[in-house]
């Protein structure tokens, strides 16, 4: 009797499984036809594509060249090269950003730099088409030519 019962249970389980796989069969397919629908933006908002340093309309960024991101980077992907410049208001020498070098080829997209940045100067974009023919093209300079540090808003 147990034998027959187990056979019936087995048949019932099999029908359940086949029902589930039939649901998958008729479900709309998730495959993206990538090169054809290139204009359609499909990566997720949280996707870490490429590191960028946002600039405002006056060509100003928020990076103070503190170098915390460089220290936190496990792969040596980021190089913060700073220079000393005389501050006009106080008359003292101040460290400002010269070049922010980001090597896309060695980045593992761990996001430690973005999370550790005290100024929120860098962030991720969804840009994902990174393929190039030569390696030097992967070395990106993130700060734009002639950009300066954004002035802090004075507290009222």
């Amino acid at each position: 009797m147990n034998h027959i019962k187990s056979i019936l249970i087995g048949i019932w389980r099999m029908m359940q499984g086949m029902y589930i796989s039939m649901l998958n069969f008729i479900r709309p397919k998730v495959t993206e036809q990538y090169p054809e629908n290139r204009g359609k933006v499909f990566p997720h908002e949280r996707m870490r594509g490429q590191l960028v340093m946002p600039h405002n309309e006056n060509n100003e960024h928020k990076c103070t060249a503190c170098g915390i991101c460089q220290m936190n980077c496990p792969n040596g992907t980021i190089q913060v090269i700073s220079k000393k410049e005389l501050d006009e208001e106080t008359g003292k020498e101040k460290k400002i950003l010269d070049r922010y070098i980001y090597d896309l080829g060695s980045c593992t997209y761990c996001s430690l730099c973005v999370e550790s940045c005290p100024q929120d100067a860098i962030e991720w974009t969804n840009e994902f088409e990174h393929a190039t023919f030569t390696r030097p093209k992967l070395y990106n300079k993130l700060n734009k030519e002639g950009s300066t540090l954004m002035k802090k808003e004075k507290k009222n």
Partner: protein
Amino acid sequence: MFHFEVVTNWIDEFLRTYLSEGWALFIEFVLIGVAILAVYAVLALILIYVERKVCAFFQCRIGPNRVGPFGLIQSVADMIKILIKELIRIDRADPRLFRLAAFLVIIASICTFGAIPFDKGLQAVDFNIGVFYLLAVSSLGVVGILLAGWSSNNKYTMIGAMRSGAQLISYELSCGLALMTMVMLSGTMQLSEIVEQQSYAWNIFRGGIPALIAFVVYLIAGHAETNRGPFDLPEAESELTAGYHTEYSGIQFGFFYLAEYLNMFIIAAIASTLFLGGWMPLHIPGWESFNQIMDYIPPVLWFFGKTFFCVFLALWVRWTMPRLRIDQLLNLEWKILMPICLVNIVLMALWIIYV
């Protein structure tokens, strides 16, 4: 209803008016051989495409869609690729048996293919013991599989071949018993006559519950005989790389591949011939206008529709179930399917006597 009988009879008469009987027969044999090989190859290409597309859909993918519209020429491209590949000589293998094995497998498959009634008069071999012939010839393939496993000089192929031998020989039993219940119902073993008898009700409706049980058992056992789906432990790619055809390459591997796909088709075709009425349209006694409309659909389309429905069932099971272990596989056969089949034969006898 248009039958292919017209075409084949016309060819026969045409040849006989111009040639002596011997030459006419000879030319007909050649024509039949060429036709069978061509249909065999074309069906294999279609089946490979169907398989890839269906399994993609079960995995929420689209499947082949680059070569040709909807990837229709994909399997042709694969065929060309496999034809121009090198045949690798295996070190310390048995070269004669190694080469013979691939041919044995595909010859068994083609011989079975010839006996399938596609339409009235579109059947190469029509014995009065057709069902016996099908069972006997389709079992020849296991010899090729065992030879392939033995002659490759490789432990994985050996294990795969031994598993395949155990599996095929044991599932042959319930396969044969399930077919036997249908032979009991029809009272004949001639395939063309079995199809003719189903002109008013397909066997699965005529035979009632015993026929339904036999159909399900036949689908399971036949599926196991094709070494696919949840029963693919002879080639279990995660444990035995590819089982008995691990060492094969190029067209020899292609033969195994072809035979595997066509065996799936043959099992489905036998199921549709014996249970679902073969090329016979769906007729319901009493509904004359309905029967007339059904007659407008050509019988070949009916046959292929039913067969591809059975093929789809096989693929559906394949993508639902995980692979069985060897002891579970043999338990399923000897403890479950075999007793069900034996009881079912008694049931069928009672059904024939009392209903």
